[in-house]
C-alpha cells in the first residue's frame, strides 16, 4: 500500500492536486481548470491517488466530489521521523566526538586518549 503512496507522491501534478484538495473538496472538472492538462489527464492522476488511498470520491448524482484522505501519509511520515531522529542524533554525537577530540579530550567510554 505504501509503495502506491510513494508512487503517487512522486509526480508533481499529483502533489499539486493533493495540495488543492487540502484546501477543500473539488470535482474533476474544477481540478482540470486549475491545471494545464486535459480532463482525461487529471482523471488519470486522480485514479492513481485513489488507488493509493489518498483521495476519496463521493458520488452525488452526476457529480463526483473528491476529498483528500491524509491517513496514508501518516505512516509515510512516521518512517521519515524515525530516521530523521536517528540521523540527527548521530550527527550530534559526531559533532561532540570531533569537538572533544579537537580539544584534546578523550572520547567517552574509550580508556585511551587520542
Amino acid at each position: 500500500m505504501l509503495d502506491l503512496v510513494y508512487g503517487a507522491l512522486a509526480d508533481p501534478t499529483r502533489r499539486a492536486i493533493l495540495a488543492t484538495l487540502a484546501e477543500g473538496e473539488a470535482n474533476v472538472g474544477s481540478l482540470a481548470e486549475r491545471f494545464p492538462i486535459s480532463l482525461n489527464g487529471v482523471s488519470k492522476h486522480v485514479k492513481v491517488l485513489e488507488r493509493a488511498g489518498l483521495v476519496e470520491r463521493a458520488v452525488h448524482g452526476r457529480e463526483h466530489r473528491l476529498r483528500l484522505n491524509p491517513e496514508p501519509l501518516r505512516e509515510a511520515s512516521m518512517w521519515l521521523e524515525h530516521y530523521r531522529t536517528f540521523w540527527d542524533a548521530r550527527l550530534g554525537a559526531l559533532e561532540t566526538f570531533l569537538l572533544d577530540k579537537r580539544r584534546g579530550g578523550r572520547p567517552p567510554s574509550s580508556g585511551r586518549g587520542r
Partner: protein
Amino acid sequence: MNAAGEGAPVLVVRRRIAVPRDQVFAAWLDSESLAQWMRPGDCTTATVTVDPRVGGGFRIVMDGPTHGAVEHYGEYLAIEPPSLLSFTWISQPTEHRATIVTIEFEERGGATELVLTHRGLPAKAVEGHRKGWTDVVRLLDEALTRAG
C-alpha cells in the same frame, strides 16, 4: 534511479560542524571513531568494522538493553574525500534491502556543512516504528518543497 524505486521516501538531514571537513569526512571511515558516535538511544556499545574502499563493506552492530544487538551493514558506493561519501545501508528495519545514504561535506570557512540524504527505504519499515507521530501536513509540505 534508487534501489527502492521512484517515489520512495527521501530524507535530508543537515548539520554544521565547527571542524574542517577533512576531519569530519575521516570520522565516517574510521572504525574507532564510528564506534564512539554510532550509538543511538540507549545503545551501550557499537562494534564496527570497515573496509573503506569503493566496493568494500562496513558492519556496525549496535547493542543495548532495549533492542539487543542490531546489525547494520552496507557497501561503499563512492568515496571522494573530503567532499562526498555514499554507501548502502542495510538492516532489519530496512528489511535487509539496500537503501542509500549519501553525505556531502561542504567547506564553510573552516567549518563543515554536512548534508545527509537517505533514500529508498522500503515502505514497510514504517510499520515497525509506530510511535504515535502523526504529522501528515509536514510530509505533504516536504513533498511539495522537493517538487519546487
